[in-house]
């Protein structure tokens, strides 16, 4: 914690960050440095930045060789994703007016058939659509649907009468095993994770009321 009080107007964190990045003009740099020389509080704040050298996970779209864990599972489930994609394609090619949905799939206007996968990371191990949950697990949702489609996604965690929404509802562009941005944990044991898909922001009251139209749910028992 920075315990000291600034001698005047504190140098903002944005300005300190830009100083660290050499992103300020010469005059501003000189003024900020002069302030830091005289102000222990702001100097300590700047030291926090300088001392914080932890690396970030790499961006998967740029570096496929060293992905963070939440993108590595794309490789692990490649076969599953391809199968899901093939299922979507097969459904699309069927001549029947209303083709049967694949497991974990729903039909969404503007996206066609969307297949949902629930992905769990436990102690570094990835599991697709697992059956149980521990508090230390990390969860993500993946979608597979035909390119050029778009669907709104909302995730609900149902535990008894309580329905919680760990991620913001968001619009996701279709593709093969597209990871919905954000990860979440599930506390308090057994739960049902429901993924609502719709052409617009899903109605949370519908989910709270137990209406499962356009929703894919998976029950999770309390893990060992």
């Amino acid at each position, binding site marked *: *914690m*920075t*315990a*000291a*009080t*600034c001698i005047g*107007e*504190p140098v*903002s*964190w*944005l*300005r300190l*960050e*830009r100083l*660290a*990045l050499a*992103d300020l003009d010469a005059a501003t740099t000189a003024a900020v440095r002069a302030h830091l020389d005289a102000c222990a*509080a*702001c100097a300590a*704040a700047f030291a*926090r*930045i300088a001392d*914080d*050298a*932890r690396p*970030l*996970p790499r*961006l*998967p*779209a*740029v*570096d496929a060789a060293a992905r*963070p864990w939440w993108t590595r599972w794309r490789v692990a489930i490649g076969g599953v994703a391809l199968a899901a994609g093939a299922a979507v394609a097969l459904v699309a090619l069927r001549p029947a007016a209303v083709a049967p949905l694949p497991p974990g799939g729903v039909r969404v206007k503007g996206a066609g058939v969307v297949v949902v996968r629930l992905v769990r990371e436990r102690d570094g191990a990835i599991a697709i659509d697992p059956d149980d949950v521990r508090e230390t697990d990390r969860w993500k949702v993946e979608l597979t649907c035909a390119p050029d489609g778009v669907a709104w996604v909302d995730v609900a*965690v149902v535990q008894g009468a309580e329905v*919680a*929404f*760990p*991620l*913001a509802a968001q619009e996701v*562009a279709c593709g093969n095993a597209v990871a919905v*941005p*954000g*990860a*979440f*944990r599930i*506390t308090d044991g057994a739960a049902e994770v429901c993924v609502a898909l719709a052409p617009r922001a899903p109605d949370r009251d519908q989910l709270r009321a137990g209406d499962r139209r356009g929703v894919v749910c998976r029950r999770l028992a309390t893990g060992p």
Partner: protein
Amino acid sequence: MAPASEHAAAYQRFGPALVRKAERILRNREDAVDVVHALFAELIARGAAPVDLPYLYRAVTNRALNVVRDARGRARLLERQQATLAPAPRASGALVVGLDLLARLCDRLDADHRDVLVARYVDELTQDEIAALYGVSRKTVGKRLARVDAAAAALVAEGA
């Protein structure tokens, strides 16, 4: 469309600063990294034009506050918050915006006022910097800040 390599370069350059900023709001590094990573993944997917640190600051504020505003996300954050990621304010007498107060203020303020709240009391921007960052007048910033202060005072009074 901007090539992904430009965003990758921006991610490497500005990412740590943005994670530190998100940490000051969310009070844990894991969620902060998620927010920043998701932001850049979206920029790449959209082929958005290259962006500067002030733009990214605003974007991270929005995304981090979305997590705070979500009831489930809020409960998780309160449970996992790490006090060491929240530096004490350096300005004498400044409002101390802990995660709980921030969450409750988010319920009472609209987006413009939430932005000012974070900019002033979490990022410790001056009023001039806030005006430049959000493209509004210093007078507007002052009005919004007064509204934020009033909401905070009301909350504190209710809790007393």
